[in-house]
């Protein structure tokens, strides 16, 4: 290339031709590195190659090494037409022998119409799109020297690809090969991170399950052995078993909900007129042994339209968070506000900072002061999903150093 430049003193047109081409290559490099998936990279490569070099058609295809004929070139292939249309089409089978030759050789292949007709492995039929008159193909070579695939340009009878065309295509192919490896690495990283999250989740859940299991097994065995615990203890034993069993069910429910949210399946909810006061009573009975709870309920509170089991889940999550992050008593208030029924859970804990508020409802978020406590970091993530799937709203007000208030707003049953 240097020799070529030195040989003829560059005049204005040559200079500007070069500059334009170089700028186009730079642009193309940026464009090719933008997509985050391999098909996107291939598509960009085809578009830019056809555009910069000016060919009727570009085909970009990845190869599956080790596969037999007819299977080797079936991975991610695009044909780009001059008007920019791309289509996911497999390269025609008759083109495969030439493609194989390019990849095995690991070098570009540039053929004029005559040279193409003279080859024994030339495509034997003219496809509906490909004139197969002039041929240029460049392999996409990975950093370890192996062939990932190729990019192929073809054009009509009056056009023969030049050395410059080939050099441009080699450059673009190299950029694309790097981009492909990069996206594959990123995908691997994302998979690893997802795996790690899943492992931590499972470990967190099985960790949290051990407390209710221990209580249930210990107490149930006592009830099943001689001598039976005295009358006055039995009621409390049975209530404790029931309470811990519900807690265990809650953990399992949490995991099931999380799975559904993650796989984009809708959460199962059945909103119907529900006694909110009873729901507040249930959450109080769950937590009153852990922390002092102060309850306030408005008189003549209407029923709310909500799934009662899901309301229990939401309230249990909010109160459990309050208990976890605060030693002081927790207030639970149920009140009406125009055509809504609102339940507030108020704590005097450390509060939530601005930056934490943004992430509050994300998965796997734990509070700053959560160290040493159990929890999967999924409670609010699932709570938010449950709220969104009914006509409910959840508002958070917090004052760092003072406390927080979480307010669940539900439509009242007899509105209007």
């Amino acid at each position, binding site marked *: 290339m240097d020799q070529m430049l030195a040989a003829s003193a560059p005049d204005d047109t040559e200079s500007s031709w070069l500059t334009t081409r170089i700028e186009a290559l730079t642009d193309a490099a940026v464009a090719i590195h933008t997509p985050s998936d391999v098909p996107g990279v291939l598509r960009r490569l085809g578009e830019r190659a056809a555009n910069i070099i000016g060919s009727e058609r570009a085909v970009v295809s990845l190869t599956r090494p080790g596969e037999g004929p007819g299977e080797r070139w079936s991975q991610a292939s695009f044909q780009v037409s001059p008007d920019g249309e791309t289509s996911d089409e497999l390269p025609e089978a008759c083109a495969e022998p030439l493609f194989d030759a390019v990849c095995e050789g690991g070098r570009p292949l540039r053929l004029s119409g005559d040279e193409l007709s003279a080859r024994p492995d030339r495509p034997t039929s003219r496809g509906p799109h490909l004139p197969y008159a002039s041929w240029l193909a460049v392999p996409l070579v990975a950093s370890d020297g192996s062939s990932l695939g190729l990019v192929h340009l073809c054009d009509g009878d009056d056009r023969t690809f030049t050395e410059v065309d080939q050099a441009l295509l080699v450059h673009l192919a190299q950029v694309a090969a790097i981009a492909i490896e990069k996206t594959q690495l990123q995908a691997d990283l994302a998979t690893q991170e997802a795996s790690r999250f899943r492992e931590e989740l499972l470990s967190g859940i099985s960790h949290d399950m*051990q407390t209710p299991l*221990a*209580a249930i097994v*210990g107490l149930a065995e006592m009830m099943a052995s001689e001598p039976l615990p005295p009358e006055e203890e039995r009621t409390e034993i049975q209530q*404790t078993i029931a309470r811990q069993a519900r807690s265990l069910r809650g953990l399992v429910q949490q995991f099931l909900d999380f799975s559904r949210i993650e796989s984009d399946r809708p959460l199962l909810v059945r909103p119907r007129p529900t006694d909110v006061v009873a729901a507040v009573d249930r959450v109080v009975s769950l937590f009153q042994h852990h922390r002092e709870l102060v309850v306030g309920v408005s008189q003549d509170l209407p029923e709310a339209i909500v799934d009662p089991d899901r309301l229990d889940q939401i309230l249990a999550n909010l109160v459990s968070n309050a208990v976890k992050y605060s030693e002081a008593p927790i207030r639970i208030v149920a009140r009406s506000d125009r055509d809504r029924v609102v339940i507030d859970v108020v704590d005097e804990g450390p509060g939530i900072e601005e930056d934490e508020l943004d992430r509050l409802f994300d998965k796997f978020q734990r509070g700053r002061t959560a160290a*040493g406590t*159990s929890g999967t970091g999924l409670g609010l993530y699932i709570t938010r999903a449950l709220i969104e799937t009914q006509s409910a709203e959840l508002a958070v007000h917090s004052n760092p150093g003072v406390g927080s208030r979480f307010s669940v707003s539900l439509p009242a049953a007899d509105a209007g």
Partner: protein
Amino acid sequence: MTRTVLVADDEPDIRFMATLQLRRHGWDVIEASDGDEAAQAVARHELDAMVLDHRMPGRTGIVVARGARASGFGGPIVLFSAYLNPDIEAEAAEIGVRTLGKADVATLAEALDAAG
């Protein structure tokens, strides 16, 4: 003469279950709901044994155990936790503290006898 055991755990239902179980096996039980209360109980009472949750607010179980051994307590100590990292397991073994998985808390009384 009845023997006295300290039960320390921040989960009220676990404390309840452990207390009932140990009483059925003839122990007198003193309860503590966090590590600091547990340390105070060690200082205040004549104890024959201790059952300590590891993860508690305030001092952790191993810290309470360490303190008790340091002040000359020679009786059985059981430390339970859902998961104890190898360093803590090692320290427990060194100071004669028996460890128990949280799920095995139902066998607390036997573990205590075995640790004695």
